[in-house]
């Protein structure tokens, strides 16, 4: 365990200098390797399972693991080639290598940016805001692509001024620059704490008081939008004055770090800068805890505290010791999000099968088996588009982004889940109709337009190979013998070419609409 000193870490250039000094010291000499940490996680989970008398599920097969890791770390499906290669690989460390490859791929930062954009932005942004949404996305993707330390990322966001297509200013303007909304959301996202209940009264379940809430909100009291930037996207500035008051009173509340004793230095730069420094400092125990809880939820489908962004006394963790050690580990590896994800992905817990024969036997908080996660609307669209071979792209002015693709926007709008819980499936009749008969499925199963189906026309494939490819491309596994037999009926050898093309389209349709395709299992 790493001891928590009083050392203040900083951000930007200062941080580099401070961390260079610290890193050379003894504090990190015993930082566990990802492998050691992964085993430690499994040990702690196993202790709890033994205590509860629950037998963990066996490890998942390679196909399942490949599909799962690829979806969780890059947001998309593995290609047919990747599945074949991975299944044929007989190296014992191939799962570890896979995780490394996935985390280094360009899809990884894109997927994390998609994920974090959804966490950060309040509502389905309106059309006028779409450029700013792309700004948030691009900014996040850059952070993740460079693997910017997580504490720096948060600090950089907290002092952001950047507008339009490159900056995250929408995070502030989308909440109307209102201190109470920014307080509620930054504390939820970066501290894992729902202090907004304390906006109007002392928190009913936790120790936050109304005074605490407004003292935290005071850090955003001087935020403003630069004038004369119409049409250019917002640029944020910090005014020299501005205060918050307790509701229905004239009582000014001065800024104070949540749960901390250290004083705010009014001469140390803008209030946002003060908050940024504290946020990334070792005085703030909430930041690493919230981050590892998010990462755990991203990988395992639910947090060690669940939901991941509502931690506190009222919502005890299922594995407090594990949460604590993982947070320390995250600090020790210098807030390296990529390494944190790599560590979680190589645990045995992450490799377990998700199969379960009765819901009664399923206690999700024990992590005895893998959770089933529903593909997000974006994952689903991108997977279908990948099979179709249709690139997602759209332009607004000079700005180009998959987010601006009108067809992708329509699909996401219709399908988007509203739950934070990835293990929920909250779509229904309208979405099922859309998926079965909508334009995306029609195109994906059109022998003339779908890249995958066109590729099957090559004369050197046998029909068994064709069926195999359809399964590998969608479910990332080989068909079972009975599935071969059933599918072969759809493409009679002596049938006319149109009938055979139709048959292959029908097989693909059934695969793409299956629960096995729509869920990450």
């Amino acid at each position, binding site marked *: 365990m790493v001891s928590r000193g009083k050392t203040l870490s900083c951000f930007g250039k200062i941080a580099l200098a401070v961390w260079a000094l610290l890193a050379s010291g003894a504090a990190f000499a015993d930082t566990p390797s990802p492998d050691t940490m992964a085993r430690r996680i499994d040990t702690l989970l196993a202790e709890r399972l033994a205590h509860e008398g629950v037998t963990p599920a066996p490890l998942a097969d390679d196909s399942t693991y490949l599909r799962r890791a690829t979806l969780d770390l890059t947001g998309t499906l593995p290609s047919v080639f990747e599945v074949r290669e991975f299944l044929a690989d007989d190296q014992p460390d191939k799962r570890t290598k896979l995780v490394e490859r996935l985390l280094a791929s360009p899809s990884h930062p894109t997927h994390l940016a998609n994920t974090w954009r959804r966490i950060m932005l309040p*509502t389905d942004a309106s059309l006028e805001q779409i450029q700013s949404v792309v700004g948030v996305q691009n900014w996040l993707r850059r952070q993740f692509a460079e693997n910017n330390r997580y504490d720096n990322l948060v600090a950089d966001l907290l002092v952001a001024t950047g507008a339009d297509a490159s900056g995250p200013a929408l995070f502030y303007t989308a909440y109307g620059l209102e201190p109470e909304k920014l307080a509620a959301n930054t504390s939820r996202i970066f501290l894992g704490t729902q202090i907004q209940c304390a906006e109007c009264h002392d928190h009913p379940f936790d120790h936050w008081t109304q005074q605490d809430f407004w003292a935290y909100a005071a850090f955003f009291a001087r935020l403003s939008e630069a004038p004369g930037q119409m049409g250019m996207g917002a640029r944020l500035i910090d005014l020299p004055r501005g205060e918050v008051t307790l509701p229905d009173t004239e009582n000014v509340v001065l800024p104070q770090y949540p749960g901390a004793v250290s004083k705010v230095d009014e001469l140390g730069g803008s209030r946002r800068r003060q908050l940024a420094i504290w946020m990334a400092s070792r005085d703030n125990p909430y930041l690493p805890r919230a981050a590892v809880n998010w990462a755990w939820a991203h990988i395992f489908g639910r947090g060690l505290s669940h939901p991941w962004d509502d931690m506190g006394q009222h919502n005890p963790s299922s594995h407090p010791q594990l949460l604590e050690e993982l947070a320390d580990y995250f600090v020790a590896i210098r807030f390296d999000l990529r390494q944190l994800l790599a560590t979680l992905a190589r645990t045995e817990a992450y490799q377990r099968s998700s199969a379960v024969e009765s819901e009664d036997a399923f206690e999700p908080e024990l992590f005895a088996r893998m959770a089933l996660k529903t593909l997000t609307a974006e994952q689903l669209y991108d997977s279908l588009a990948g099979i179709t071979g249709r690139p997602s792209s759209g332009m607004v002015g000079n700005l180009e982004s998959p987010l601006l693709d009108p067809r992708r926007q329509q699909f996401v709008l219709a399908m988007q*889940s509203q739950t934070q819980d990835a293990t*929920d*499936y909250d*779509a229904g*009749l309208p979405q099922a109709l859309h998926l*079965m008969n909508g334009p995306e499925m029609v195109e994906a199963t059109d022998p003339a337009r779908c890249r995958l189906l066109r590729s099957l026309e090559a004369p050197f494939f046998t029909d068994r190979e064709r069926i195999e490819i359809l399964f590998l491309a969608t479910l990332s596994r080989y068909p079972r013998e009975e599935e071969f037999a059933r599918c072969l009926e759809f493409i009679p050898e002596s049938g006319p070419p149109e009938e055979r093309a139709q048959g292959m389209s029908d097989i693909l*349709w059934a695969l793409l609409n299956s*629960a096995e395709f729509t869920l990450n*299992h």
Partner: protein
Amino acid sequence: MSNTNANASAPAKWTRRDWLRWSGYGMWGASSCAWLPELARCWAQSPQRKRHCILLWMAGGPSQTDTFDMKPNHANGGEFEEIATSVPGLRISEHLPKLAQQADQLAILRGVQTKEGDHGRGTYLMRTGHAPGGPVRYPTLGSLISKELGEPDAALPNYVSVSPRQLFNPAAFSPGFLGPRYAAVTVGAREADATASSSFAQLGVDHLQLPQGVADTRADRRLDLWNGLQQPFLARHAVSAPQAQDTAYRRAVKMMHSDAAAAFDLSREPEEVREAYGRGVFGQGCLIARRLIERGVPFVEVTLGGFEDNAIGWDTHQDNFATVRRLSTQLDNGWGTLMSDLRDRGLLQDTTILWMGEFGRTPRINDNAGRDHFPNAWSCVLAGGGIQGGQAYGQTSEDGMEVVDGKVEVGDILSTLCLALGIDPYQENQTDIGRPIAIAEGTPISSVLA
């Protein structure tokens, strides 16, 4: 109120008569609200009160001065004349004759006051009951109501929306935090079939029809193969997510195969009936609404404005009178025929209708013979079952610029609608972070409730 406790202990004894007596003062003040939730719950539990709902959505913001709150003796009044209705003393626009004949069904709210004068923001406010911009994704009215009134496995969807015009603010049409399964199944305009002899607007359910080139037999074979993939996966994964996916698909398949889907087939209606509703998208949409209500669909929404020859809808910044006249005729044919048809079938008493747009329009006529956005004093209309028709509730000043009596806000209207439908407006849904949000906030307008 002193007898809060007494009422709370015996809520079932509250009758409609008691309730009307208590509420004889028009609207409840904020101070008398304590016992209201109890009463609302008790009333909502009564099985007879469950009604269907039709929302007639006026995209662009309709002019109250040229429809339901005329100012014939003022310069702001404009070109149109008032006409008498079936209710003595109640007068509306000359271009709404069918509605005038059925004014006994209408409760015109003339004192609506809101704060959003932008299309996107106003649309969100009126359709969700909340101003936009906060962290909560508020559900649209149809999702809220159909969740309460609908059956989860009905053959027809619980929420159908005909030609929604989502451009101003897509979030205002979304099921919000309730989740996508509570979204509307939408009915859209289709390209007219070249072989069709009629000139009626062609409407079809989005994504209900099999794609071109997929015959029924092929679809069945495909589904059979799908079923073969589903079963073993579901058996191996006995948790809720795959079950929920399977349920959604099976319900969609049921609807595709169901005779109930014939509800959307207007070719089964006599030509003269289709004609009476009006040939446009709105009129034909109202006819679909009637067919759906007949088959028990709890919430149907029909939009007027924003298609065919009228891309701007009711947004009449210019040339207000010609546009409003044309729209009024469509409105009157569609809505008027819908009400008389429902009445003939004995269904009007079970169906509550709400007519509204995102805001009203300036009483003052601008230099382009148009009227601009005006949320300060405008009109909405409640009609049909559960509504005390034949009245105008509230009043605006002579020039129409101010509400002088019976001011209501969106929450008041929506909670009134809930009670008329037999829903407890104070019942709460949970957001994804467990925050409880009432279906509607505000104070029901008791004198509008039957």
